[in-house]
């Protein structure tokens, strides 16, 4: 618990709060200022917009403790503001609200815009208001209401906005080629690695789950007694995020064609994200059979919180880096090294999922 002192709507407030408490929850739950609404709670919808030190901010992604010493103004603090009064009237006249959930945020964002850009045209208003979402009235009335007020002279009492005082491309051999379409909604990625060992030797490694799994950064076998099934865990870090996927995989192999398939499902307990996917690897000889090209086709789907960060290109970059490290570890294993395989020395996350697949996948065919 941390003491925090700030001014809210002109009144000094002193409380002791948990560091993780957001400014929005501080206003709503601790001060009963429920005019501030929480919508998405991750900085997307704008419903929780308030003013901090004269500038608008999203109270859901700012910590109360980080606002120590600040002047905070929530929608309740604008009751006597002449510009807000004009906006309220315009919102009424133009039917700019229906359920009213987005309205406190809309009003505070609109008031800030009018002070910063008096006289702005419709395109500018639209652009500036794009960070506040409305899910029922639609935006036409809201924009009209703002237009109505933005063209008028600013009320003299409304101070202008205060001025703050301020004196590689993935290195692997990885060009992702066009891959066949996977299941609806799944992401498909293709990776290639070339290993300086004969296909038979590489195939043998890939069939030896106990040996190949540790080559995958972050992978760990939890339960494997031979056969075509295993339980495993894959931990990954991606920037500030880390995830640990635990799950099951089953393997199929076609030694004649040197094609292996791994099917898996896993769950990250902390984020309650589920992942499901398939990995298919194909070994082909290179350089007269002295080397091997491994083509890995990865298809997966995520459901749950982590999926919200599932931007394909990011996964691709992560998988590329992962693949490079895997290739190095596999190469060392093939060369007979007994040193502990290297982990990925980067940041933390969901791409763990991906990792999970790659990991198991190489397991057995």
């Amino acid at each position: 618990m941390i003491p925090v002192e700030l001014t809210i709507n002109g009144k000094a407030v002193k409380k002791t709060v948990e560091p993780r408490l957001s400014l929005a929850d501080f206003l709503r739950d601790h001060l009963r200022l429920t005019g501030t609404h929480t919508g998405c709670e991750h900085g997307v919808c704008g419903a929780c917009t308030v003013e901090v030190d004269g500038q608008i901010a999203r109270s859901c992604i700012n910590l109360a403790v980080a606002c120590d010493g600040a002047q905070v103004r929530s929608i309740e603090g604008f009751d006597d503001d002449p510009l807000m009064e004009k906006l309220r009237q315009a919102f009424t006249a133009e039917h700019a609200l229906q359920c009213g959930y987005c309205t406190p945020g809309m009003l505070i964002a609109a008031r800030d815009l009018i002070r910063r850009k008096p006289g702005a045209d419709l395109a500018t208003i639209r652009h500036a208001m794009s960070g506040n979402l409305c899910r029922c009235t639609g935006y036409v009335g809201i924009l009209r209401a703002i237009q109505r007020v933005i063209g008028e002279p600013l009320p003299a009492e409304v101070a202008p906005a205060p001025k703050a005082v301020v004196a590689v491309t993935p290195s692997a051999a990885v060009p992702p080629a066009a891959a066949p379409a996977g299941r609806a909604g799944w992401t498909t990625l293709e990776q290639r690695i070339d290993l300086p060992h004969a296909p038979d030797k590489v195939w043998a490694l890939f069939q030896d789950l106990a040996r190949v799994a540790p080559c995958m950064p972050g992978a760990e076998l939890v339960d494997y007694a031979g056969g075509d099934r295993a339980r495993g865990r894959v931990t990954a870090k991606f920037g500030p995020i880390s995830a640990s996927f635990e799950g099951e995989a089953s393997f199929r192999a076609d030694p004649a064609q040197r094609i292996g398939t791994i099917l898996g499902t896993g769950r990250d307990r902390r984020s309650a994200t589920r992942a499901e996917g398939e990995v298919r690897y194909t070994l082909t000889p290179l350089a007269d059979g002295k080397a091997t090209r491994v083509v890995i086709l990865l298809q997966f789907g995520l459901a749950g919180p982590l999926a919200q960060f599932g931007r394909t290109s990011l996964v691709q970059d992560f998988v590329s880096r992962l693949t490079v490290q895997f290739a190095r570890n596999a190469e060392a294993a093939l060369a007979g090294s007994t040193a502990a395989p290297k982990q990925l020395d980067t940041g933390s996350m969901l791409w763990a999922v991906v990792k999970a697949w790659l990991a198991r996948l190489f397991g057995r065919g």
Partner: protein
Amino acid sequence: MKPAPFDYTRPADLPGALKALGGDGARALAGGQSLGPMLNLRLARPGLLVDLRRVDELRRIEQRGDALVLGAMTTHASIEDGQVPDTTRGMLRRVAADIAYRAVRTRGTMGGSLAHADPAADWVTALTALDATLTIARGGGTSTALMAGFMTGAFATALGDGAMLTAISIPSLSDRARWGYYKICRKPGEFADAIGAVVLDPARDYRRVVMGAVGGAPVVLESLAAKLPFDSTPTLTRAEIEAAAPAMDSVDRQLHVVAVERALAQAYAR
């Protein structure tokens, strides 16, 4: 949507911040507009947040010779509002004004964005195009690193544990310099799908074209930049831009090539 518990500290100076950041599970809070959502979704679970807001050194703004030096905690909004001297013929201001939404720009910082290293973020690409140099502090002292090469992948940088990005030095553009910056988003303020950035400055014989929001670090298109004239409009074909781009699928390639094409058109229209 509540973060998992963590400890919080608000150091008053740089040595205090570095000391706190040396702890296990410590994470810098430099505005928190990207970290905040990740905390709420419990994707990020730091043991300790080190809030850099009170470290005055990180807010310093200086003009040093031919460069503008911005403290890492300079907010996007302060650049947007013109509180930072314009030494880039308006480029920094234009880029800043189009980052996410106003309510995010007032809290989010340039240094925070660079250290977070989201490939779709604006500064990693724009400051690569401007050839910025970063000042990095760690226990033993400070060092510098070029922005080009600082980001090593998605959410990955050369910063290292316990180190801190303290300032960004941005070379000033001459009167004859040209620049273009174009980003493609599904909706204003959303993460970019593609970014193109171009900076040309005959006074320094400097040419740079950058393709951003590619998944990893922004890509400097050297062969393409070498073909660019300073005083006449180039006759580049789309195929030439495509040839310079890294491998990506056809949809991504189209978006990125268009972003670079439009950034070039902007630069030469200036």
